[in-house]
């Protein structure tokens, strides 16, 4: 099998991993070396595919052969896909060739589990080692690790990688037992705890004065959860994410809406979740990390799923109208952050500007705030929202999306949506 065909199979096999970040790495570059590569600062998206996702790292599996039988996964052992396997040198060469043409920021390498966790991990590490030690590659490397691999191997992976990750996949052991019988949440969390320990350790050593620079170690870890393959509510998913953020200080939790795969399993739901659910989870995740929201405020035990029609901040505001209107000239930062349509940066701008002036509507318009959205929730020197009806029943209706429009279709007749096929197949209307 030639490299083109392998790339076709092993990139296809890797596309369900949503992570693409190439930011947050330690600052390094290729000056003074014969190699290429730099990291640090903002990651760069070098392209976008029509699914709206960015192409930042070359995301491939080393092999898509796998012992495990995770039913949401196209590479599970029960699947009938064509199997392929890269040699470490092939991945090294592809990474360098693509990197030098500025197609990518680096490599995201994962693998199906063959023979054992340790054996697989060794192969993955070999690729990273060659890139770093033989080719002096200073670009971004993200390695997927296996919780059951020995701690020494995970530590070695961390030496070569900028980021390492382990996917929790599903937020409860109950779901894993059904859909991913080889996976175990406790072991995954334990491995994450070890990785956090390593990251913290290296960080602490770096700060010690008069000591030699400690060997490099990945600067962050992340994970992914699958949405819609099991019956978990958004409250469960966000609760799990929140726990991972605080217990293991993850950089990111990625949410991946389960989507139809070419080799469907008999025990998966027929219906893929709406993509908007994934989007709402990301918005909620943002509120947890940057806006000081608590999980219970966004997804409460009494309504554990996010409102698909409205973003979670707006939805929270409509349920907590007594908090509003917020006076943009006086309110503290934490209250301004709660105003729908006001982001972190604009809050900073407002705080800076109001030290010198009393803010009026014209100022907000000049900042290009989303006036329609924020007006009912704020007051300024010349505006009070009472007449817009903060108390009225119709406020929610004001924010509901307009009737759906079709996307541009490059001249083709309107195509049936996946939902149409599902309803045709299941007889459901």
């Amino acid at each position, binding site marked *: 099998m030639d490299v083109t065909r392998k790339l076709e199979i092993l990139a296809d096999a*890797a596309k369900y991993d949503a992570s693409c970040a190439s930011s947050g790495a330690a600052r390094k570059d290729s000056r003074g070396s014969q190699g290429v590569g730099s990291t640090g600062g903002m990651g760069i998206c070098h392209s976008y595919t029509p699914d709206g996702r960015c192409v930042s790292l070359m995301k491939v599996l080393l092999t898509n052969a796998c012992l495990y039988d995770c039913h949401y996964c196209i590479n599970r052992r029960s699947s009938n896909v064509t199997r392929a396997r890269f040699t470490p040198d092939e991945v090294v060469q592809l990474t360098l060739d693509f990197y030098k043409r500025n197609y990518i920021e680096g490599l995201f390498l994962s693998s199906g589990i063959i023979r054992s966790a340790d054996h697989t991990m060794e192969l993955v590490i070999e690729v990273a080692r060659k890139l770093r030690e033989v080719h002096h590659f200073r670009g971004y490397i993200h390695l997927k690790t296996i919780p059951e691999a020995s701690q020494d191997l995970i530590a070695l992976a961390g030496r070569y990688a900028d980021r390492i990750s382990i996917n929790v996949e599903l937020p409860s052991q109950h779901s894993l037992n059904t859909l991913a019988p080889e996976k175990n949440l406790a*072991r995954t969390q334990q491995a994450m705890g070890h990785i956090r320990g390593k990251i913290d350790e290296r960080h602490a050593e770096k700060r010690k004065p008069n000591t030699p620079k400690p060997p490099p170690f990945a600067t962050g870890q992340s994970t992914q959860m699958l949405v819609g393959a099991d019956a978990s509510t958004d409250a469960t998913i966000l609760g799990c994410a929140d726990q991972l953020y605080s217990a293991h200080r993850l950089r990111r939790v990625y949410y991946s809406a389960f989507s139809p795969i070419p080799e469907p399993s008999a025990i998966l739901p027929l219906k893929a979740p709406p993509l908007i659910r994934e989007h709402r989870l990301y918005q909620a995740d943002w509120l947890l990390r940057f806006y000081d929201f608590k999980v219970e405020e966004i997804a409460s035990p009494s309504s554990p799923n996010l409102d698909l029609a409205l973003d979670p901040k707006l939805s929270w505001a409509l349920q907590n109208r007594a908090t509003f209107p917020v006076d943009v000239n006086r309110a503290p930062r934490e209250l301004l952050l709660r105003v729908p349509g006001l982001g972190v940066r604009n809050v900073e701008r407002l705080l800076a500007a109001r030290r010198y002036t009393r803010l009026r509507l014209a100022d907000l318009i000049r*900042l290009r705030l989303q006036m329609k959205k924020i007006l009912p929730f704020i007051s300024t020197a010349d505006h009070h929202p009472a007449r817009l009806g903060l108390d009225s029943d119709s406020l929610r209706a004001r924010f509901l999306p307009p009737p759906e429009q079709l996307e541009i279709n490059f001249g083709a007749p309107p195509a049936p949506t996946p939902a149409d096929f599902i309803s045709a197949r299941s007889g459901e209307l």
Partner: protein
Amino acid sequence: MRTVVIQPEYEAWRSAARQLLAQRVPPEDVLWADDAQESPLFMQEEPAQMAAPAAPPVKVPPAFLDLARSAAAHTDARRWAMLYRVLWRLTLGAERHLLSMPTDPDIRQLQDWCKAVGRDIHKMHAFVRFRLVSTHPATGREQFVAWFEPEHRIVRLATPFFEKRFAGMDWSILTPYECAHWDGTRLHFTAGVPRSSAPDEDAQDELWRTYYRSIFNPARVKISAMQSEMPKKYWKNLPEASLIADLIAGSSRRVQGMLETEERSVKPAPNNAYLQSLHALNQQQKSVTPDPGLP
């Protein structure tokens, strides 16, 4: 009224502005023009008298210099006058806090220009595509050439990034108004060239297209999300963009194929020692911990 004609570069503006400020020339008395541009009719009357006496140093917040350097790269003809007006207000106008006033129209305008320039730089970092043209006979270093069409005059601001990233290879980035070259020791700049000076294809482009085609998930088409980050104006210089139309057109047929595929039944676990140990471990853990994942 005096007219100041400068090279369209930040340094040229800065030295002119410094002298004007030393002579206390208010912004409304200056007409700025690019050297490269069509000159206004009355310009010949009074070329700027720039041999000024030693001026007392003017102190401005460092943040203004960053703002000015970036706004200067914008192509809007009003930028020089706007920068001088803001400089005047910050210093002689005694509005020291002006930069903290994002609601001020002048500051807003400068920030908008900076944002456009910053975005252009970011897109250049993302969308430049190097093509291998040769290997240096003496040094053995690979030599690459790229073509890019920036919207603003950003080549000098954007290329230090490439120097750090691609130190180990020789490269040139050609653009219509200025070109940058790196030979392993020095970054230097030459005049712009036409598109035809750059190579069209690289041998790896086809492999890259294979990757791009394979990483696309037809079950989640979001065309507007793609276009907001990768506007169509960049497509003509991206080797992968030629695939976009076909990928979109074929996506629903592919999804239909997936949904019509018969589900696969579960395969029993193979006789593998590692898997068996894993299953035994899971059984054990199940009886000890009820569900550690739930908070």
